[in-house]
Protein backbone atom coordinates (compact mmCIF):
# COMPACT_ATOMS: atom_id res chain seq x y z
CA UNK A 1 0.00 0.00 0.00
CA UNK A 2 1.32 3.42 -0.92
CA UNK A 3 1.02 6.58 1.15
CA UNK A 4 -1.71 9.12 0.72
CA UNK A 5 -1.21 12.60 -0.54
CA UNK A 6 -1.29 14.21 2.90
CA UNK A 7 1.49 11.97 4.18
CA UNK A 8 3.55 12.42 1.05
CA UNK A 9 3.46 16.20 1.39
CA UNK A 10 4.43 15.96 5.06
CA UNK A 11 7.40 13.77 4.21
CA UNK A 12 8.49 15.99 1.33
CA UNK A 13 8.29 19.06 3.55
CA UNK A 14 10.38 17.43 6.25
CA UNK A 15 12.98 16.29 3.72
CA UNK A 16 13.26 19.78 2.26
CA UNK A 17 13.72 21.21 5.73
CA UNK A 18 16.44 18.69 6.49
CA UNK A 19 18.14 19.40 3.20
CA UNK A 20 18.21 23.13 3.87
CA UNK A 21 19.23 22.84 7.48
CA UNK A 22 21.48 19.82 7.07
CA UNK A 23 24.64 21.70 6.32
CA UNK A 24 24.17 23.96 9.31
CA UNK A 25 23.59 20.92 11.49
CA UNK A 26 26.74 19.33 10.09
CA UNK A 27 28.73 22.45 10.90
CA UNK A 28 27.30 22.40 14.41
CA UNK A 29 28.27 18.79 15.04
CA UNK A 30 31.55 18.67 13.14
CA UNK A 31 33.00 22.15 12.97
CA UNK A 32 36.18 22.84 11.06
CA UNK A 33 37.56 22.93 7.59
CA UNK A 34 37.19 20.36 4.88
CA UNK A 35 40.47 18.47 4.55
CA UNK A 36 40.97 19.44 0.93
CA UNK A 37 40.50 23.16 1.53
CA UNK A 38 43.67 25.00 0.65
CA UNK A 39 45.01 27.67 2.89
CA UNK A 40 48.15 29.71 2.81
CA UNK A 41 50.68 28.09 5.08
CA UNK A 42 52.52 30.06 7.72
CA UNK A 43 56.16 30.66 6.84
CA UNK A 44 58.60 27.94 7.82
CA UNK A 45 60.13 28.65 11.17
CA UNK A 46 63.59 27.16 10.57
CA UNK A 47 66.85 29.09 10.59
CA UNK A 48 67.41 28.12 6.96
CA UNK A 49 65.30 28.71 3.89
CA UNK A 50 67.14 27.78 0.72
CA UNK A 51 66.42 29.74 -2.43
CA UNK A 52 68.08 30.55 -5.73
CA UNK A 53 68.49 33.68 -7.78
CA UNK A 54 69.10 33.30 -11.50
CA UNK A 55 70.78 36.32 -13.05
CA UNK A 56 69.61 36.27 -16.66
CA UNK A 57 72.04 39.05 -17.54
CA UNK A 58 74.92 36.67 -16.94
CA UNK A 59 73.29 33.51 -18.22
CA UNK A 60 73.61 32.49 -21.84
CA UNK A 61 72.83 29.25 -23.66
CA UNK A 62 76.35 27.85 -23.20
CA UNK A 63 76.34 28.40 -19.46
CA UNK A 64 72.83 26.97 -19.21
CA UNK A 65 73.96 23.88 -21.10
CA UNK A 66 76.89 23.54 -18.71
CA UNK A 67 74.57 23.77 -15.70
CA UNK A 68 72.26 21.13 -17.15
CA UNK A 69 75.18 18.87 -17.96
CA UNK A 70 76.63 19.25 -14.48
CA UNK A 71 73.33 18.42 -12.80
CA UNK A 72 72.27 15.57 -15.03
CA UNK A 73 75.63 13.82 -15.01
CA UNK A 74 75.94 13.95 -11.22
CA UNK A 75 72.40 12.79 -10.60
CA UNK A 76 72.33 9.97 -13.14
CA UNK A 77 69.57 11.51 -15.22
CA UNK A 78 69.02 9.38 -18.34
CA UNK A 79 69.35 10.94 -21.77
CA UNK A 80 66.74 9.45 -24.08
CA UNK A 81 67.72 11.79 -26.92
CA UNK A 82 71.29 10.55 -27.12
CA UNK A 83 71.49 6.99 -25.80
CA UNK A 84 75.00 5.76 -25.03
CA UNK A 85 74.42 2.71 -27.20
CA UNK A 86 73.13 3.41 -30.75
CA UNK A 87 71.06 0.23 -30.56
CA UNK A 88 68.89 1.89 -27.93
CA UNK A 89 67.81 4.77 -30.17
CA UNK A 90 64.16 5.60 -29.59
CA UNK A 91 61.45 6.89 -31.88
CA UNK A 92 61.02 10.64 -31.61
CA UNK A 93 57.68 10.29 -29.87
CA UNK A 94 59.13 8.22 -27.03
CA UNK A 95 62.15 10.49 -26.70
CA UNK A 96 59.75 13.23 -25.79
CA UNK A 97 57.34 11.22 -23.71
CA UNK A 98 60.04 9.59 -21.59
CA UNK A 99 62.17 12.69 -21.20
CA UNK A 100 63.52 13.18 -17.69
CA UNK A 101 64.69 16.61 -16.70
CA UNK A 102 65.80 18.12 -13.44
CA UNK A 103 66.92 21.41 -14.93
CA UNK A 104 66.15 22.61 -18.42
CA UNK A 105 65.64 25.72 -20.51
CA UNK A 106 62.56 27.16 -22.11
CA UNK A 107 61.60 30.44 -23.70
CA UNK A 108 60.30 33.40 -21.76
CA UNK A 109 56.84 33.10 -23.31
CA UNK A 110 56.52 29.48 -22.14
CA UNK A 111 58.10 29.90 -18.74
CA UNK A 112 56.23 33.03 -17.71
CA UNK A 113 52.66 32.80 -19.01
CA UNK A 114 50.64 35.78 -17.87
CA UNK A 115 53.57 38.14 -18.41
CA UNK A 116 53.15 38.25 -22.16
CA UNK A 117 52.37 41.51 -23.88
CA UNK A 118 52.05 42.52 -27.51
CA UNK A 119 55.05 44.81 -27.42
CA UNK A 120 57.67 43.18 -25.27
CA UNK A 121 61.19 44.22 -24.38
CA UNK A 122 62.81 42.64 -27.38
CA UNK A 123 65.62 41.09 -25.39
CA UNK A 124 63.10 38.95 -23.51
CA UNK A 125 61.45 37.74 -26.67
CA UNK A 126 62.49 34.10 -27.11
CA UNK A 127 65.07 34.34 -24.32
CA UNK A 128 65.97 30.95 -22.89
CA UNK A 129 65.42 30.79 -19.14
CA UNK A 130 67.01 28.16 -16.96
CA UNK A 131 64.19 26.31 -15.21
CA UNK A 132 64.16 23.86 -12.34
CA UNK A 133 61.99 22.83 -9.42
CA UNK A 134 60.90 26.02 -7.66
CA UNK A 135 60.98 24.47 -4.18
CA UNK A 136 57.74 26.32 -3.50
CA UNK A 137 56.94 27.58 -0.06
CA UNK A 138 53.42 26.21 -0.51
CA UNK A 139 54.12 23.20 -2.71
CA UNK A 140 51.05 21.69 -4.39
CA UNK A 141 52.94 18.46 -5.14
CA UNK A 142 53.39 17.85 -1.42
CA UNK A 143 49.71 18.49 -0.78
CA UNK A 144 48.56 15.84 -3.24
CA UNK A 145 51.13 13.10 -2.57
CA UNK A 146 49.17 10.18 -1.07
CA UNK A 147 52.21 8.51 0.52
CA UNK A 148 54.16 11.57 1.66
CA UNK A 149 56.91 10.46 -0.69
CA UNK A 150 57.38 14.10 -1.53
CA UNK A 151 57.52 16.42 1.43
CA UNK A 152 58.90 19.74 2.52
CA UNK A 153 61.96 19.83 4.71
CA UNK A 154 62.35 22.41 7.45
CA UNK A 155 64.88 24.24 5.26
CA UNK A 156 62.31 24.57 2.48
CA UNK A 157 63.64 21.90 0.14
CA UNK A 158 60.82 19.98 -1.49
CA UNK A 159 62.31 16.55 -1.03
CA UNK A 160 61.54 13.21 -2.65
CA UNK A 161 61.69 9.90 -0.85
CA UNK A 162 62.06 7.51 -3.77
CA UNK A 163 61.58 4.58 -1.43
CA UNK A 164 58.01 5.66 -0.81
CA UNK A 165 56.99 6.83 -4.27
CA UNK A 166 54.27 4.61 -5.74
CA UNK A 167 54.31 6.32 -9.13
CA UNK A 168 50.75 7.67 -9.05
CA UNK A 169 51.90 10.91 -10.72
CA UNK A 170 49.48 13.10 -8.77
CA UNK A 171 52.44 15.40 -8.07
CA UNK A 172 53.13 15.76 -11.78
CA UNK A 173 49.55 16.83 -12.33
CA UNK A 174 49.75 19.22 -9.40
CA UNK A 175 53.05 20.90 -10.30
CA UNK A 176 52.33 23.96 -12.44
CA UNK A 177 55.96 24.20 -13.56
CA UNK A 178 56.42 20.81 -15.22
CA UNK A 179 59.37 20.21 -12.92
CA UNK A 180 58.63 16.53 -12.42
CA UNK A 181 59.36 13.59 -14.67
CA UNK A 182 58.20 10.01 -14.50
CA UNK A 183 60.35 6.95 -15.14
CA UNK A 184 58.40 5.09 -17.78
CA UNK A 185 61.17 2.50 -18.00
CA UNK A 186 64.33 1.43 -16.22
CA UNK A 187 66.57 4.44 -16.85
CA UNK A 188 69.94 2.73 -16.33
CA UNK A 189 70.73 1.77 -19.93
CA UNK A 190 70.23 5.40 -20.95
CA UNK A 191 72.52 6.96 -18.39
CA UNK A 192 75.63 8.07 -20.29
CA UNK A 193 77.98 7.40 -17.38
CA UNK A 194 76.67 6.20 -14.05
CA UNK A 195 77.93 8.23 -11.11
CA UNK A 196 78.29 5.57 -8.45
CA UNK A 197 78.19 8.00 -5.57
CA UNK A 198 74.57 8.89 -6.35
CA UNK A 199 71.70 6.41 -6.72
CA UNK A 200 69.87 5.93 -9.99
CA UNK A 201 66.11 5.50 -10.13
CA UNK A 202 63.93 2.52 -10.91
CA UNK A 203 60.98 2.19 -13.25
CA UNK A 204 57.80 3.75 -11.86
CA UNK A 205 59.00 6.62 -9.69
CA UNK A 206 58.79 10.36 -10.21
CA UNK A 207 61.93 12.46 -9.94
CA UNK A 208 62.92 16.11 -9.92
CA UNK A 209 65.56 18.56 -8.73
CA UNK A 210 66.23 18.16 -5.00
CA UNK A 211 68.36 21.30 -4.62
CA UNK A 212 71.43 19.05 -4.32
CA UNK A 213 70.59 18.22 -0.70
CA UNK A 214 73.35 15.58 -0.75
CA UNK A 215 75.91 18.26 -1.63
CA UNK A 216 74.51 20.75 0.89
CA UNK A 217 74.96 18.07 3.57
CA UNK A 218 78.68 18.18 2.82
CA UNK A 219 78.85 21.96 2.73
CA UNK A 220 78.98 22.23 -1.05
CA UNK A 221 76.94 24.44 -3.36
CA UNK A 222 74.47 22.84 -5.77
CA UNK A 223 76.08 21.47 -8.92
CA UNK A 224 74.36 23.91 -11.28
CA UNK A 225 75.47 26.88 -9.18
CA UNK A 226 79.08 25.72 -9.31
CA UNK A 227 78.92 25.31 -13.08
CA UNK A 228 77.11 28.58 -13.72
CA UNK A 229 80.08 30.98 -13.66
CA UNK A 230 78.26 33.27 -11.26
CA UNK A 231 74.91 33.40 -13.04
CA UNK A 232 73.18 31.39 -10.32
CA UNK A 233 73.28 32.31 -6.67
CA UNK A 234 72.14 29.92 -4.00
CA UNK A 235 71.65 30.85 -0.40
CA UNK A 236 69.67 31.15 2.76
CA UNK A 237 66.69 33.50 2.63
CA UNK A 238 66.34 33.43 6.40
CA UNK A 239 69.73 35.07 6.78
CA UNK A 240 69.46 38.83 6.05
CA UNK A 241 73.19 38.97 5.27
CA UNK A 242 73.12 36.19 2.71
CA UNK A 243 73.97 36.81 -0.92
CA UNK A 244 70.51 35.90 -2.17
CA UNK A 245 68.92 38.41 0.18
CA UNK A 246 71.40 41.02 -0.99
CA UNK A 247 70.50 40.33 -4.63
CA UNK A 248 66.78 40.38 -3.93
CA UNK A 249 67.14 43.66 -2.04
CA UNK A 250 69.02 45.39 -4.83
CA UNK A 251 67.38 43.97 -7.95
CA UNK A 252 63.94 43.62 -9.44
CA UNK A 253 63.17 39.90 -9.77
CA UNK A 254 60.38 37.87 -11.28
CA UNK A 255 59.14 34.40 -10.40
CA UNK A 256 57.27 31.80 -12.41
CA UNK A 257 53.47 31.89 -12.06
CA UNK A 258 53.37 33.58 -8.65
CA UNK A 259 49.65 34.21 -9.15
CA UNK A 260 48.99 30.53 -8.43
CA UNK A 261 49.90 30.98 -4.78
CA UNK A 262 52.61 28.34 -4.65
CA UNK A 263 55.21 30.93 -3.59
CA UNK A 264 58.07 29.71 -5.79
CA UNK A 265 61.58 30.25 -4.50
CA UNK A 266 63.57 30.59 -7.72
CA UNK A 267 63.96 34.28 -8.53
CA UNK A 268 64.97 35.63 -11.93
CA UNK A 269 66.80 38.90 -12.50
CA UNK A 270 66.07 40.03 -16.05
Amino acid sequence: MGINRREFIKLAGLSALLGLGGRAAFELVLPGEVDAAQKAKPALQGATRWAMVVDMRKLNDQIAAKCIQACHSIHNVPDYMHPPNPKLTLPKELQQRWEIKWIWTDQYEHAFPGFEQDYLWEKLHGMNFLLLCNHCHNPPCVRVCPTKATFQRADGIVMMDMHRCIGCRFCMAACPYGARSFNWRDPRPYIPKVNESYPTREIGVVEKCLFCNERLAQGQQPACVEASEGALTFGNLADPKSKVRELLRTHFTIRRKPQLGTNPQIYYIV
Partner: protein
Amino acid sequence: MADYKNEFGWFAEKPTVEKKIYDRGKIIIGLVVFLVIFTIAFWKNLGKAIPPPQPSLKTPAILKLPEKERKCVEDRQFMREKHMRLLINWRDQVVRTGDRTYINSKGQKYFISLSNTCLQCHSNKSQFCDECHNYVAVVPNCWGCHSTKEQTVAKAEAK
Protein backbone atom coordinates in the same frame (compact mmCIF):
# COMPACT_ATOMS: atom_id res chain seq x y z
CA MET B 1 6.09 -48.33 11.37
CA ALA B 2 9.13 -46.62 10.06
CA ASP B 3 11.57 -45.71 12.75
CA TYR B 4 14.55 -44.19 10.99
CA LYS B 5 14.53 -40.77 9.38
CA ASN B 6 17.15 -39.08 7.32
CA GLU B 7 17.03 -36.22 4.84
CA PHE B 8 15.37 -38.48 2.26
CA GLY B 9 12.41 -39.54 4.44
CA TRP B 10 11.34 -42.28 6.86
CA PHE B 11 12.80 -45.76 6.51
CA ALA B 12 12.07 -49.11 8.14
CA GLU B 13 15.66 -49.40 9.18
CA LYS B 14 18.84 -47.51 8.74
CA PRO B 15 19.90 -47.91 5.11
CA THR B 16 23.32 -49.48 4.79
CA VAL B 17 25.82 -47.76 2.58
CA GLU B 18 28.58 -49.84 1.18
CA LYS B 19 31.90 -48.71 2.66
CA LYS B 20 34.11 -48.59 -0.35
CA ILE B 21 36.39 -46.15 -2.15
CA TYR B 22 35.42 -46.10 -5.76
CA ASP B 23 38.42 -46.10 -8.13
CA ARG B 24 40.67 -46.90 -5.22
CA GLY B 25 43.69 -47.77 -7.36
CA LYS B 26 43.65 -44.54 -9.29
CA ILE B 27 43.15 -42.43 -6.19
CA ILE B 28 46.00 -44.02 -4.31
CA ILE B 29 48.34 -43.66 -7.27
CA GLY B 30 47.29 -40.03 -7.59
CA LEU B 31 47.93 -39.40 -3.90
CA VAL B 32 51.37 -40.97 -4.09
CA VAL B 33 52.27 -38.91 -7.16
CA PHE B 34 51.04 -35.78 -5.42
CA LEU B 35 53.05 -36.50 -2.29
CA VAL B 36 56.21 -37.16 -4.27
CA ILE B 37 55.88 -33.98 -6.28
CA PHE B 38 54.98 -31.96 -3.21
CA THR B 39 58.02 -33.12 -1.30
CA ILE B 40 60.43 -33.35 -4.21
CA ALA B 41 62.53 -30.45 -2.90
CA PHE B 42 63.26 -32.43 0.24
CA TRP B 43 64.17 -35.61 -1.64
CA LYS B 44 66.45 -33.78 -3.99
CA ASN B 45 68.51 -32.24 -1.21
CA LEU B 46 68.41 -35.26 1.08
CA GLY B 47 71.80 -35.91 2.62
CA LYS B 48 73.40 -32.86 1.04
CA ALA B 49 74.83 -30.21 3.28
CA ILE B 50 74.49 -26.65 1.97
CA PRO B 51 77.70 -24.87 2.94
CA PRO B 52 77.14 -21.90 5.25
CA PRO B 53 77.56 -18.52 3.57
CA GLN B 54 81.01 -17.00 3.67
CA PRO B 55 80.80 -13.33 2.87
CA SER B 56 84.15 -12.10 1.67
CA LEU B 57 85.74 -8.98 3.13
CA LYS B 58 88.61 -8.96 0.66
CA THR B 59 87.92 -5.83 -1.33
CA PRO B 60 90.60 -3.32 -2.37
CA ALA B 61 89.18 -0.62 -0.08
CA ILE B 62 89.23 -2.87 2.97
CA LEU B 63 92.63 -4.40 2.25
CA LYS B 64 94.11 -0.93 1.92
CA LEU B 65 93.23 -0.15 5.53
CA PRO B 66 95.71 -1.12 8.25
CA GLU B 67 94.73 -4.33 10.04
CA LYS B 68 93.49 -2.53 13.15
CA GLU B 69 91.15 -0.16 11.36
CA ARG B 70 89.26 -2.85 9.47
CA LYS B 71 86.07 -2.31 11.40
CA CYS B 72 82.52 -1.62 10.36
CA VAL B 73 80.40 1.02 12.09
CA GLU B 74 79.31 -1.53 14.68
CA ASP B 75 80.81 -4.85 15.73
CA ARG B 76 80.54 -7.97 13.62
CA GLN B 77 77.74 -9.62 15.58
CA PHE B 78 75.56 -6.50 15.48
CA MET B 79 76.09 -6.03 11.75
CA ARG B 80 75.30 -9.66 11.06
CA GLU B 81 72.06 -9.61 12.96
CA LYS B 82 70.82 -6.08 12.58
CA HIS B 83 72.32 -4.45 9.49
CA MET B 84 68.92 -4.39 7.82
CA ARG B 85 67.37 -2.47 10.71
CA LEU B 86 70.34 -0.11 10.77
CA LEU B 87 70.12 0.55 7.05
CA ILE B 88 66.38 1.19 7.17
CA ASN B 89 66.83 3.60 10.07
CA TRP B 90 69.63 5.36 8.21
CA ARG B 91 67.48 5.60 5.12
CA ASP B 92 64.62 7.22 7.00
CA GLN B 93 66.91 9.49 8.97
CA VAL B 94 68.79 10.76 5.92
CA VAL B 95 65.87 11.14 3.54
CA ARG B 96 63.27 12.41 5.95
CA THR B 97 65.35 14.61 8.28
CA GLY B 98 68.49 15.20 6.22
CA ASP B 99 70.69 14.30 9.19
CA ARG B 100 73.66 12.34 7.89
CA THR B 101 75.65 11.60 11.02
CA TYR B 102 75.58 8.31 12.83
CA ILE B 103 77.04 7.92 16.28
CA ASN B 104 77.80 4.30 17.00
CA SER B 105 77.74 2.45 20.31
CA LYS B 106 81.33 3.55 21.02
CA GLY B 107 80.54 7.19 20.40
CA GLN B 108 82.34 7.41 17.06
CA LYS B 109 80.83 9.57 14.35
CA TYR B 110 80.17 8.31 10.83
CA PHE B 111 78.87 9.95 7.66
CA ILE B 112 75.81 8.09 6.47
CA SER B 113 75.62 7.20 2.80
CA LEU B 114 74.92 3.77 1.41
CA SER B 115 76.53 4.51 -1.94
CA ASN B 116 79.46 6.49 -0.59
CA THR B 117 80.41 4.77 2.64
CA CYS B 118 78.96 1.23 2.91
CA LEU B 119 79.41 0.28 -0.72
CA GLN B 120 82.85 1.86 -0.95
CA CYS B 121 84.26 -0.80 1.35
CA HIS B 122 81.85 -3.57 0.43
CA SER B 123 82.23 -3.23 -3.30
CA ASN B 124 81.92 -6.97 -3.87
CA LYS B 125 78.18 -7.45 -3.93
CA SER B 126 78.20 -11.00 -5.30
CA GLN B 127 80.71 -12.25 -2.73
CA PHE B 128 79.45 -10.21 0.21
CA CYS B 129 75.77 -9.23 0.07
CA ASP B 130 74.47 -12.01 -2.14
CA GLU B 131 76.33 -14.67 -0.21
CA CYS B 132 73.96 -14.56 2.77
CA HIS B 133 70.92 -13.15 0.99
CA ASN B 134 70.82 -16.08 -1.40
CA TYR B 135 71.39 -18.53 1.44
CA VAL B 136 68.36 -17.30 3.36
CA ALA B 137 66.40 -16.51 0.18
CA VAL B 138 65.75 -12.84 0.83
CA VAL B 139 65.66 -10.35 -2.00
CA PRO B 140 66.38 -6.80 -0.83
CA ASN B 141 65.87 -4.30 -3.65
CA CYS B 142 68.58 -1.82 -2.62
CA TRP B 143 70.61 -2.32 -5.80
CA GLY B 144 67.75 -1.33 -8.07
CA CYS B 145 68.92 2.23 -7.47
CA HIS B 146 72.09 2.18 -5.38
CA SER B 147 74.58 0.93 -7.87
CA THR B 148 77.59 -1.12 -7.05
CA LYS B 149 80.84 -1.16 -8.93
CA GLU B 150 79.82 -4.58 -10.10
CA GLN B 151 77.33 -4.06 -12.86
CA THR B 152 76.02 -7.60 -12.77
CA VAL B 153 72.75 -7.98 -10.97
CA ALA B 154 72.29 -11.03 -8.79
CA LYS B 155 70.14 -13.86 -10.04
CA ALA B 156 67.69 -13.46 -7.22
CA GLU B 157 67.19 -9.83 -8.01
CA ALA B 158 66.60 -10.27 -11.71
CA LYS B 159 63.31 -12.09 -11.04
